[in-house]
């Protein structure tokens, strides 16, 4: 009896909370960027946006499990493997042609089921008080060398690092990736989150960390407290470590509010959303046609990143390989 009352009671609260929601965005992007986009979009269009915070792969697998009943209308990620996973399950509504036209072809998959909304470059953030340029690894693969044992860090549980591994997998194949991961397990120190890893470099706990570029620029723009001793090394030369990861956005086929969801995607890839990348404090690269990125960043066109089709990045395989290597 008590339990029946319990469920009746909670049922009412549920109805209250889920009324009038506008669109629901599963936001695996940084919370602050997601909030900035949502607030500006709502201000301009009057369409309410409810954000749910999670991580790339968590949401991708979750959407696959939820299938047609997913409460999400839009899915935003930090990296593209999660997008491919959802796309592979056939759960994306094709992105409106006008939206696709706002993003150059190399920043979106050829099938047009989702689109790039921002980009981020892999870097080796190093302690400039300890390492000089001649001592830096030439390639990310060098970090597997025993001479690097105990000297570098990464955040293996994060989607960012898993995307880098998926690029490595796509560029060098399964065998090379598995043995690199195995060597990594021997050599590296695990941190939770790229910002924490950078903080460790700054504090002198490790000499370098494989992270994305914008943590450094973000901290420099604030107090610089966590990056005072840090410098960035871009691997370039189309090295796996020069990988540029595409943050994705897509509309779900199961969405009940497709029109508004498409509007949101069009908005963040258009002047408004890309402008927030340029003027805001996220320091991710803008990907829209002719849209400038934040002035503090080195130009994307100079990074000599390897060509990787975002649609080929395989996340499930990466998780398996990393689990096998004892990293997860």
């Amino acid at each position, binding site marked *: 009896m008590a339990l029946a009352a319990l469920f009746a009671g909670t049922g009412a609260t549920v109805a209250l909370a889920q009324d009038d929601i506008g669109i629901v965005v599963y936001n695996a992007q940084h919370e602050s960027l997601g909030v900035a986009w949502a607030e500006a979009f709502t201000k301009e269009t009057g369409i309410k946006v409810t954000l749910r915070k999670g991580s790339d792969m968590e949401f991708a697998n979750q959407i696959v*499990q939820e299938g047609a009943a997913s409460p999400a209308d839009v899915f935003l990620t930090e990296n593209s493997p999660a997008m491919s996973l959802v796309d592979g399950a056939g759960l994306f509504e094709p992105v409106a042609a006008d939206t696709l036209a706002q993003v150059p072809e190399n920043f979106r998959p050829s099938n047009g089921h989702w689109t790039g909304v921002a980009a981020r470059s892999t870097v080796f953030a190093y302690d400039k008080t300890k390492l000089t340029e001649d001592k830096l690894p030439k390639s990310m693969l060098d970090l597997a060398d025993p001479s690097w044992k105990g000297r570098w860090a990464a955040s293996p549980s994060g989607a960012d690092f898993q995307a880098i591994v998926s690029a490595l997998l796509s560029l060098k194949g399964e065998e090379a990736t598995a043995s690199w991961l195995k060597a990594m397990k021997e050599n590296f120190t695990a941190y939770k989150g790229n910002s924490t890893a950078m903080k460790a470099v700054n504090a002198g706990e490790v000499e370098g960390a494989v992270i994305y570029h914008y943590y450094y620029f973000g901290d420099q723009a604030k107090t610089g407290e966590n990056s005072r001793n840090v410098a960035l090394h871009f691997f370039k030369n189309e090295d796996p470590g020069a990988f540029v990861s595409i943050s994705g956005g897509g509309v779900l086929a199961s969405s009940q509010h497709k029109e508004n969801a498409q509007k949101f995607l069009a908005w963040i890839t258009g002047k408004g959303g890309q402008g927030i990348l340029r003027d805001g404090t996220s320091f991710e690269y803008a990907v829209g046609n002719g849209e400038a990125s934040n002035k503090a960043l080195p130009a994307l066109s100079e990074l000599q990143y390897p060509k990787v089709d975002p649609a080929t990045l395989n996340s499930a395989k990466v998780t398996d390989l990393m689990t096998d290597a004892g990293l997860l």
Partner: protein
Amino acid sequence: MIAAKGRSRVPYLVVTIVAAFVSLVSLVPLGFIAWISVQTGWETATKLIFRGRVGELLVNTALLELCTLPITIAMSVALAWLTERTDLPGARLWSMLAVAPLAVPAFVHSYAWISLVPGLHGLTGGVLVSVLAYFPFLYLPVAAQLRRLDPAIEDAAASLGLNPWQVFFRAVLPQLRLAICGGSLLVGLHLLAEYGLYVMIRFDTFSTAIVDQFQSAFNGPAANMLAGVLVSCCLLLLVIEAVARGGERYARVGSGAARPADKRRLGRMLVPALALNAATAALAIGVPFVTLTRWLYIGGGDIWRIDLVGGAFGQTVLLAIAGGMLATIAAAPMAWLSVRAPGRLQRVLEACHYYVGSLPGVVVALALVTITVRLVLPLYQTFATLFLAYIMLFLPRAMVGLRTSIAQAPVELERAAMALGRTPFQAVRQTTMRLAAPGIAASTALVALGITNELTATLMLSPTGVETLATKFWSLTSEIDYVAAAPYAVMMVLLSLPLTFLLYVQSRRATGQ
């Protein structure tokens, strides 16, 4: 007793059925893991369980328990003895300060510590922060037990020629065994379940690894197999505690009340005693206080965004109160049965109620996510599921207050009410439940305290748009925005303070002081 009144048979039956239902529901996470293991298949399951990573996590977990528990026990016993049995100046204040760390959520403790000592990590960091965050769970029962001890036994020991140290180790300490075992179990289970503390301090445990797996593959077999190992660890702790507790009786034989014990004079030990108390308070209360004050000062007025902080505060309070009441309601049938109709079936049902509270939030959440998404999708990401998780996780807390207060309400009143024409349910409601009101309130408050500081289940299960103080604090600290996170930490502490004080008062009242 059951057969005494024909009319009272009905409620016993109905209540038993309801309690059995709650027990059955609380078995769901365990059954779920077993089911997933079967589904995964022997080969994959063994591959996922017997691998190096699981070995590392087991070593980490074992070391954490083995280092933390002895330190916590020694510290709690020393503090309890000093505050209860000596002439320590300001004993009452020190005793409050020894309970106060409970008002600071464990992950706020570690936030405070890594702000102060950024390099702190691994086992050392894990043990340090765990001891400081959880020792009150041991201090409370040990202090209560010390107050209750009959000094006659110590007098007898002393008259037989034992020196004060021998008296303590041979007469006092053995009588503290139950309190120490119970408290250690509670701390040990918290060490297994804790997530936020260890992520911040960079120490991998099963809970952190399960969340990592969850975030990489949602509800994959690997996460569930880790959960299976974690549950086994919990059960192992329960067994160890049961063995350590043993079957000896410690009760005073014969009638009469024990007189309060004399306060021992500290003499030359006064300075070290004060130093120990002061150091504990400085590390467990001072550090969080200083860190929070510092971040608040740096952040100034800008970090108090009333729309965000206020919103999270409101949602947290609502969830905590509603969850507290629901858990108390769910525990009521069992609590009533265990007092009014003890027996073998009742013991089994009660064990189900208690065991589920020993499961880490991440295990319960993982089970509920998978079940709702696969089998009952309409319940997925709803308050119903979130509250169900809270009920399971905090059932034992709800039972504690209820049981003692129902036990204090005489069954004769229920019978008299029925004799005067009330239906059995009216009788219970109008007599026992009214008399038990303070206990009901205490239970609700205890659960509410738990919900206020709960992180993993809330992160994984909450409906979209729900943000509690804990989840907001968590997402901000993940971006190492320590400044913006500070107001949320402060609000959590402010919410927890009155409840912690209530706990303190209850523990003294329980011994008649």
